[in-house]
């Protein structure tokens, strides 16, 4: 799975540097100082999933965040045995920042649509690192708050575009 490193592109810079570049582009991490990002870039693992493999499954509290480097993944929700496709993620997507911050049994499953290569950070690694830089927690919280607001805003706009009433459907960020 991690065998991509060192095989053919060894001279093209190391995995650590590539990870660092990726993290700097992710909103959740973007505001962090470089020495912290280095620790995260070092702790990230690269994983490959074959089409049909689950990156995470509903109800599991796996505590991982994923950045899709290549390949698509499909988010689905299962109710009483029927699977509802929620959305498709393409390379460049970052999922699971909330799972890094605290225990969060998954409300969805994420399945590889084709061969997916992604960067994975676990909650254990994240928490242990952030303990070393406690002054950064407020910045992360800020980016989570911004994230939640923009999610709901987008949600509302989408609902409105589809002509769905917002009654009893929105207002999560107001809680």
């Amino acid at each position, binding site marked *: 799975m991690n*065998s991509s*490193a060192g095989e053919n592109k*060894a*001279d093209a810079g190391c995995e*650590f540097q590539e990870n660092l570049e990726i993290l700097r582009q992710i909103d959740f991490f973007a505001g962090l100082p470089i020495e912290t990002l280095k620790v995260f870039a*070092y702790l990230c693992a690269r994983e490959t999933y*074959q089409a049909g493999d689950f990156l995470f499954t509903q109800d*599991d509290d796996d505590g991982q965040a994923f950045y899709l480097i290549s390949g698509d993944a499909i988010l689905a929700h299962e109710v009483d045995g029927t699977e509802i496709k929620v959305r498709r993620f393409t390379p460049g997507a970052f999922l699971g920042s909330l799972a890094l911050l605290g225990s969060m049994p998954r409300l969805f499953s994420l399945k590889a649509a084709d061969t997916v290569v992604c960067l994975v950070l676990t909650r254990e690694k994240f928490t*242990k*690192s952030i303990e070393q830089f406690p002054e950064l927690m407020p910045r992360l919280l800020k980016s989570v708050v911004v994230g939640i607001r923009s999610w709901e805003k987008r949600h509302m706009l989408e609902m409105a575009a589809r002509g769905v009433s917002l009654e009893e459907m929105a207002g999560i960020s107001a809680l």
Partner: protein
Amino acid sequence: MAKPDAAVVKRSLFSWVFGPNTKLQLLLLVLIAITVFARVLPLEMQKRIVNEAIRLRNVDLLINYCAIYLVSVVSASLLKYIINSIQVIISQRTLARMREGLFAHIISLPLSFFRNTQPGMVVSSIVSELALPSNFVGMALAVPVINLLTLMAFAGYLFWLNPWLAALSLSIYPAVIFLVPLLQRRVNVANKKRVDLTRRLSDKVAESISGIHEIHGNGAYSIENRKVGSIIKRLYRIRLRWDLLRAGVKTSNNFFTSLGPFIVFILGGYLTIQGQLELGALVAFLSAQEKLYDPWKELIQFYQSYQDGRVGYDKTMSYFDAEPDYDLIPEKRDPLELEGMVEVKNLTFATGDGLKLLDNISLSLNPGDHLALIGFSGSGKSTLAQCIGQLYAYTGGQVLLGNAEVNALTKRDIVQNMGFVSQSPFIFDGTIEENLLYACEAMNGDRSDASQPSLDDKIQVLHQTGLFTDTLRFGLNTIFNPGQDDHLVEQLIRVRKNFQGQFGDSLAQYVEFFDENRYLVHSSVAANLLFGSPNREQFKGAQLAANAYFLEFLNQADLQRPLIELGADLTRQTIDILGNLPPDKVFFEQSPIAPEELDTFKALAGQTRRKKLHQLDETDRAKLLELALRFTPGRHKMVSFPKLLERLILEGRALFKEKISTDDPGAFSFYDNEQYIFSQTIQNNIFFGKTTTTNMKAQDKIVQSIIHLLIEEDLLETIVRIGMQYQVGSKGDKLSGGQRQKLAIARVFLKSPRLLIMDEATSALDNKSQARIQNFLDTRLKGKATVIAVVHRLDIIKNFDQVAVMKAGKLMEIGTYEDLMAHKGVLYELVSGRK
């Protein structure tokens, strides 16, 4: 375990002198009597040699007296040695007994005692503070008796020689007897302070070390140094004072006693000149006088040891003078076999300052009923479980287990019938198997007739708790020594063949096979070069980088400089990322530098920035080379691995094989698909390669295939048995949090208790493991064992017979899940709120 002597802390220091030591002490007395006689005899001989043999010029007499002199001196020394030895035996035996007794007493004390007692305090009490008291016990009889007798014998002899002279020269001693205790009082004050400060030092050091994560995390080195440093300085001052005062006692004693000869010379000399005293008598007098010092000195020393020992003993014993809440084993009866019925009536548990943690709780469970206790943290649900489990002594109301009052039962009655899994279970240093047997062995105690759990039982609980796969993994990660189990090794080669036949393709993406023509990204540079396991010590591990033969080969293969360069790069990059992080496994798992080497390499990183590589000294270059040899590109991602170097290493591999095969053909066993590789784990041997993934799901897939293969060869149990020998590390720190919890549950399951209390026992487990254990409780234990589970997750409580909701120490509601939900009370709020 023997019943600990409950009165150990109440015993006086003198009570240790006899007891089991009585026989030895009596033997001492007999030996002492002989010794005293053997000590006085030479004096008389001395007198006779001068007065009779020499004056009468009688050689026969001289030889006779000298022979008697010699014999008595030799036997006195010999006896003294025997007496000393017996004293040492007595004091060491006493020390061992005191330690055992005190430790047994301390661990039986109630949990509340340990809230205010630091581990360091207990350690210093048991390890160091008891040495002085037990030292005293060894001397307690022998030293005063032998010295007083000797003193009296010499004094009597002096009086017999010349009463006047004797009386005068002995007149010094009363002065000493008056003075020494005065000084000693100040010594004792200093000693008490010393004991207190030593304890505080142990406490503080123990606290700092347990908080080492926090210290590293905050870089709080100077704060801790200051805290400990101030205690050390005070201890230094008090110890100095203590030792100086002790020396003072000794010196003043020496001074007074050395006045003795002065009196004898001036008075005895005068008497001899006057012809009133024979010269022989004067010589004998002087000798006898001199011989008074030793016993006297020893008596004073004895007095000091007594005072030091008494102070240390009293301080230690009085600190731990508390009562255990419960007897450990029942007297004059077997442990009770209780019905699994639980009846809680008006239970109240209040703290010392009157805060009610549990307030008037009543509930009842029939044998085999399962109860879930839920509520917010601080609601008292854990406290209730702990009161039922006899971990805390409740202050009001009743808890009945099969109609027996819990507070009135002994600990043995409880463990016989109950299993308790605590919130943060403790795993002890040792193997998985030893930890599995912990609860069973404790329950069986000293009874030899108790049946031991079989291998099947153990494997069954490993399955029930989901620890089976973990244990299997430990087994698969074992490295065998050549010759350890040849039969198994053969079987494993067969498993390898089957693996390649059945799973070689489907698992190929997760395995990097040992292929002579490919660079192994998941093996170290050293492994890539050697491509075999060394049969000679000098090629193993860290010694390789210092091996002259190997270094010569590296030069020949043009590898030395590029590897040192790689080592320097690795050092700088790793230090840049990890330089300021604490020594946590999470940070160092993917690092070629181990946490304990961090400082060395930090210095090296600085060196490589300031100097060119050829300017570094030999040891630094060797360190960099050693690091480069560990480099595993698949794991250590912080540097790029030049393609050229990879090709050079592959070339080097072939060159090394050629070279060593001519120079020392037996030195290596090169990787060969037909041979077992003794430097690799069982799993790597089965794969004939290494796994390339750390992903849990992929690892599960791998383990499932291995299980399949092992079953085919009937090896599964063998490997699990090997896995059970895995050393879990101190406090189980080589296990994950989930594994520790599963192990804690497994050890209680293994004794299959009639009543099972689980205090958030599955909180660190993933969903699947939690569901597995819940499923086991629901299907296998329902109706057989009474279960009380403190639960933090509401999605697993549906199958419990009763659910009790607690809030602020009170029982809000209790009933079946359906009833409570229908009733729309507190549970309904909790459940719907969570959803």
